[in-house]
């Protein structure tokens, strides 16, 4: 049983939206956190686009700004200390940052939805999952409790929770980790969004459950023609589901390419080093290649290319501002490195 499509996309249309514009376009986004220790520049000019039916992966280590990007798009950034200091986030051509709180609330869930890493802390522990699902229909669609509950059961069915009619009255803690993640997916999909942001959706799960959830997400995306932004640090998951990849480091996108190109021939030293530090069968018994040093503190990002202190290709030019811009090196492939030719082995 699935929620029929004709009734599902009855979400209110957004004034000024241009259906031919890209689903989501982020342009030169800048976010900083003003803390007592100083100003942490979490995002320093990030631009990308996502279209319907496409999966864009944002890949990076902790502290690179991938989750902050998602929070900025959703409008759930903690302010203060977080402030968006520049750029645009356009949904179908409409700049979300210029909209009022109420308008953004309408866009959340209706147009753009998000699932989080830790379902147990994302769900409210004192309400049943049925209540939390029904609440969406009541607030956003003006449905009655009974109708809302019917829809809630349909949704739990859709995300393949067995005995949905019974489980709808259970509390979050009564579900297993994988089932809880399914509940969160159900809540995210309830109002039939066009864009789903998945922030580390399977990091807390076991591999067998991870496979179930990733398959479910792929099926739902196909059925509903959604665009998806997948935020993760797992190079394996990305290889399985993504169409295009943005690799982030210290608040900037350092490489952007279709998934096949990135794994076959990385164009940025950071991507290359990340790929080499994954344990591989043919390298057993050898030392793993490591990236020396630590990711930089966002309060004092190194001058020039932020990766230069850890980079084996670094020269004097890399230590000078401005940092190398993200520029096209091949059709569809961009890299923010002065020495991309050497990295790719094209030189």
């Amino acid at each position, binding site marked *: 049983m699935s929620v029929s499509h004709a009734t599902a996309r009855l979400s209110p249309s957004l004034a000024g939206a241009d259906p031919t514009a890209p689903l989501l376009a982020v342009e030169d986004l800048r976010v900083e956190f003003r803390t007592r220790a100083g100003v942490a520049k979490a995002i320093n000019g990030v631009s990308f686009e996502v279209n319907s039916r496409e999966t864009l992966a944002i890949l990076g*280590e*902790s502290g690179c700004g991938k989750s902050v990007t998602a929070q900025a798009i959703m409008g759930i950034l903690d302010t203060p200390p977080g402030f968006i200091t520049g750029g645009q986030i356009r949904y179908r051509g409409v700049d979300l940052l210029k909209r009022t709180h109420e308008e953004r609330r309408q866009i959340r869930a209706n147009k753009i939805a998000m699932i989080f890493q830790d379902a147990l802390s994302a769900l409210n522990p004192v309400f049943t999952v049925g209540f939390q699902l029904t609440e969406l229909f009541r607030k956003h669609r003006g449905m009655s409790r009974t109708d809302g509950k019917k829809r809630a059961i349909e949704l739990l069915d859709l995300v393949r929770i*067995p005995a949905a009619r019974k489980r709808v009255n259970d509390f979050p803690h009564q579900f*297993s*980790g*994988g*089932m809880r993640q399914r509940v969160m997916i159900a809540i995210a999909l309830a109002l039939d969004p066009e864009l789903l942001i998945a922030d580390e959706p399977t990091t807390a799960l*076991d*591999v*067998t*459950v*991870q*496979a*179930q959830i*990733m*398959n479910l997400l792929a099926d739902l995306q196909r059925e509903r023609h959604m665009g998806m932004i997948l935020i993760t*640090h*797992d*190079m*394996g*998951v*990305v*290889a*399985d589901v*993504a169409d295009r990849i943005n690799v982030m480091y210290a608040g900037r996108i350092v490489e952007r390419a279709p*998934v*096949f190109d990135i*794994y*076959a021939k990385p164009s940025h030293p950071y991507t290359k*080093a*990340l*790929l080499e*530090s*994954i*344990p*591989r*069968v*043919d*390298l*057993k018994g050898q*030392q*793993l*290649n*490591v*990236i020396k040093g*630590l*990711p930089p503190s966002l309060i004092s990002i190194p001058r020039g290319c932020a990766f230069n202190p850890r980079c084996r290709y670094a020269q004097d030019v890399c230590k000078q501002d401005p940092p190398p811009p993200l520029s096209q090196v091949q059709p569809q492939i961009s890299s923010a490195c002065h020495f991309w030719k050497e990295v790719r082995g094209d030189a």
Partner: protein
Amino acid sequence: MPEVVLETRDLVKYFPLTRGIVFKTKFGDVQAVDGINLQLYRGETLGVVGESGCGKSTLARLLVGLEKPTRGSIVVRGRDHAKLSGEEMRRARRNIQLVMQDPYTSLNPRMTVGDIVAEPYQIHPEVAPKGEVRKRVHELLELVGLNPDHINRYPHQFSGGQRQRIGIARALALKPEIILCDEPVSALDVSIQAQVMNLLEELQNELGLSYIFIAHDLSVVRHIADRVAVMYLGKIVEIGKDTEIYDHPTHPYTQALLSAVPVPDPTLRGHRDQIVLQGDVPSPDNPPSGCRFRTRCWKAQEICSTTEPPLQPSQKSAHPSACHFAEERDVIHATQ
């Protein structure tokens, strides 16, 4: 054959489930670890893999003596640790040390690094004379790649990878033969993971340590382990050399687990033999009869619910595999 440094015989740990406050009545057991037999040889790394709730961490706690086993024995240097108590247990513990998963919570935030690494010497003063402790701590910090000048810093001044190094230095303080690593790299970023794994391998070569390496990340275990044991609901379902487990798995659970691991190679997308298991791990307080995996197994037959398959080699499996229908299946693409 190298010397066995640790052996468990039919190791069992049940946690009682009780009801009532004044009059406690027992109404069941969580069968966390249920009959584990394994040997650890000198200088080798034994990987233990399995999903959450399969009993790997309970096994670790039993081996270091943080829990008393319900039944069975843990033999180290010919002595049964399960029967030791008091002073003898305290001394026996010196030989097996633990590196914990979360470097953020396993270090006391109010102690300096020097005090953290020196604490084992306070509990076991016979290991190092008081005057020498500071020198030893310096050596240990250097050994794990930390700057000994940072001896007076606090844990929060270090990054995750560095904190894990502090945890490793602490584990090495008493010169143990065996180190138990319970998910030592799962809280770390990929690039830092590699640094810590390299360190563990160097230390093993230098000091001749034996590791029991518990992890849920199969590619990490594959990289570091010489032998691998696969656990499911408190039992070992398959055990063998790393090549046997990864290239020739014969237990359906191992096959499913291996095939579920995402591969960092997009060209294999859609070409892999992916087995997606249905449902979750059953609760260990009421495990299925017979073979515990049968509720999620696609090979299950009548016999699986009545007879528990023994962990032994069979015609179709050269290494021990606890399945009535053990048979090799090529899921190698899942790991290459």
